[in-house]
């Protein structure tokens, strides 16, 4: 049986008030814990934001941020290896649409030689199966250590 669990990347989601210095606090905690940030984005609400981070040591980062009084949660996301060429995102999203898989949010970063697309979907297991079945590669948790 396929071990889907290993593809569930533990993303840190942090509830953060929208005021000067709040992101600096988070970054400072990561620096102090010697945690490296691999991927990063902020979703903007009204008066607050949700900071999303992929780090090399999620447990340690979670502990540190919690200790510092932040509201932190793990969110399972998928990391899709993308061919770094025009049309790569189109092909992937076309395939997901045909499979009826809705994307809650996504963000990408370039990680030479490939690009990485982080996906948050409602049904993570079905998305995992669909993406793997299409012949694409998912990074597993070991990739982010």
């Amino acid at each position, binding site marked *: 049986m396929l071990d889907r669990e290993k593809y569930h990347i533990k993303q840190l989601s942090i509830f953060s*008030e929208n005021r000067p210095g709040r992101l600096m606090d988070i970054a400072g905690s990561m620096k102090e814990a010697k945690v490296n940030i691999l991927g990063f984005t902020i979703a903007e609400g009204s008066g*607050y934001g949700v900071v999303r981070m992929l780090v090399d040591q999620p447990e340690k980062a979670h502990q540190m941020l919690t200790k510092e009084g932040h509201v932190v*949660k793990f969110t399972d996301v998928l990391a899709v290896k993308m061919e770094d060429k025009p049309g790569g995102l189109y092909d992937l999203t076309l395939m997901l649409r045909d499979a009826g898989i809705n994307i809650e949010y996504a963000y990408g970063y370039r990680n030479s030689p490939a690009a990485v697309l982080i996906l948050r979907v409602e049904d993570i297991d079905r998305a995992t199966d669909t993406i793997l079945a299409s012949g694409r590669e998912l990074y597993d948790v070991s990739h982010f250590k």
Partner: protein
Amino acid sequence: MRLLVPNAQGEMDPMTCWNPKMEMMPKEELDRLQLKHLKALVHRLYDYSRFYRDRMEAAGVHPDHIWTLEDAAKLPYMVKRDLREIEPERLLMVSNRELVRYHASSGTTGRPTIAGYTQADVNNWTESVARGIASAGIGPDDVIQVAYTYGLFTGGLGLHYGAERIGATVVPASTGNSERQLDLIKRLNVTAIAATPSYLMHLGEVSEKMGINIKRDTKLRIGILGAEPWSDGMRDRMQDWLGVKGINIYGTSELSGPLWCECAEQNGMHVWGDLTLAEVIDPDTGENLGPGEKGELVITMLQKEAVPIVRYRTGDITTLETETCACGRTHLRLGRITGRVDDMLIIRGINVFPSQVEYVLMSNPELGNEFQIVVDRKGALDDMLVRVELKPESFIDNVAKLECLKDRIASRMRNTLMISAEVELVEPGTLPRFEGKAKRVIDKRKL
């Protein structure tokens, strides 16, 4: 504008004095009339109301103990809580057959405070407003735009009936849609407006954006302004800026609605003694205070039928003056409201208790116990922001769902408080904690 000057015979211009006999009544005669009404009221309550009789007996007072106006101080107080928590049927002294109207104010726990009126109650309320606005210089030739909310709130209909009674032409504009309000003021040659002072200031700002100069382009000359505290400083600024004479008006839904306003002298609101017995007490000791001494306003409505009001503690801090006004009216004059005994806020003319906000917030399991209310004046209008902590376990990485939670809280707030407030979700543990009495309100408005 008509000036309030007695004619050669010492009589008032009938246009500016609605009820000269009553308004100019010699003080001794007025005292006797008040005492007659007070005695009748106390007897009626004792004989026909279980509620008031129990109250009086608990206080050890019998109608026979009331011999002078000062004896009113023996009667037990009523507080807002009484009207809120006691079943309306226990307070009502008349049947449905005699009731002609209900009004309501927002309640602290979402349940509104109901006020019922008989025809006589509506008539006396109307009489009060009619005398007041006539004394301010409004008459049959005037066009008055009532920009208080019509409906359960007493402001709109109270001013409407009073203005119609003196023969003025009423434009029942209610609140909102400032462009239309200004358009009506221009097109209908409106000479007076009844509104909250902050709303009139807001109209001033909107008019400038529309390229209308109220002073030059309109006939607006008098503003009947109240339902929220304001200052002489604001009045001076407004009169200078808009050329509108600011007349202060006071009243609460418990007492009937807006009841007393200043005359053209702008030196205190005339409290009609034939309808009302006003006292000022030390809110801590309950001791009655003298003229000019600042304390809590306590009101007895001498002729109210449906829901009698006896020594009602308004919670408003003010003064009373006994000297006859320069206009010749002999009745007590009520000074500006300078504060509150409790933590009640008045936002855009609506009473808001922090406990109401707390009630709404605490009904949401996603929220923590700490909150903060920030009141500010954006432009001329009050603005309320409620900041509340999100519980750590309620945080989900889904902005749409968090926004949905916020909207739900804001809409419950609007339904309960009858006023819209902005809601802000903040991180747990970031709002100030208090060891003693919590200070949850930050009022940045400068009056």
